[in-house]
């Protein structure tokens, strides 16, 4: 597995004000995607088109106004099939707003493994050079 992708921001509004933008189709569409079809309850559909990329998954947890978890994938994509990775969005109240932390888990390994192998190989070469 590659490391989780974590992105944070702070929004000048309460968690109660932010949460609807995560679970109401018309509000979600304003910041994510070009088409949205969602049923925000555990087991419900999460379907968003990002231009020509279709993202498909299922809601895992909907806990207003604190947390939303849904799966995320691209149908037909070998590296990241529908529902294969997980997105968690956590809202925490702060003095002047809401801290938003988005974590994207279970990302595909892709070719990073090859990359690492390349570096290990180089270190091996360097090691043998130094021994000569």
């Amino acid at each position, binding site marked *: 597995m590659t490391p989780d992708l974590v992105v944070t921001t702070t929004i000048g509004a309460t968690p109660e004000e932010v949460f609807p*933008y995560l679970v109401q189709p018309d509000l979600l569409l304003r910041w994510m995607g070009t088409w949205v079809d969602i049923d925000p309850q555990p087991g419900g559909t999460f379907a968003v088109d990002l231009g020509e990329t279709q993202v498909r998954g299922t809601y895992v947890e909907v806990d207003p106004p604190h947390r939303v978890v849904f799966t995320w994938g691209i149908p037909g994509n070998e590296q990241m099939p529908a529902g294969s990775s997980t997105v968690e969005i956590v809202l925490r109240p702060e003095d002047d707003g809401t801290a938003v932390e988005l974590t994207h888990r279970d990302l595909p390994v892709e070719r990073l493994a090859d990359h690492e*192998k390349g570096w290990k190989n180089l270190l091996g070469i360097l090691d043998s050079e130094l021994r000569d």
Partner: protein
Amino acid sequence: MLRLVRNQELAAGQIAAHFPITQQAVSQHLRVLERSGLVAERREGTRRLYLLRPDALGPVRALLEDLWPDALDRLKHIVEEDKRRRS
């Protein structure tokens, strides 16, 4: 090394100049990278030129690393703008 050849094609010797190891060691490493599909190799006369393959460094992750910060930034601005309009 990959960063060096991300946007420009470089010869093995030019790449080696950036590393405190022999050109031979760099060439061996470049061959490893080429075999694993991370860089493309092209010959021009006696020189071998290397360029990072655009699809090499994990297209899905790269896409998401661009997508999420942009998306959260839009979320922030839309929520804050809506709140200002209401007040």
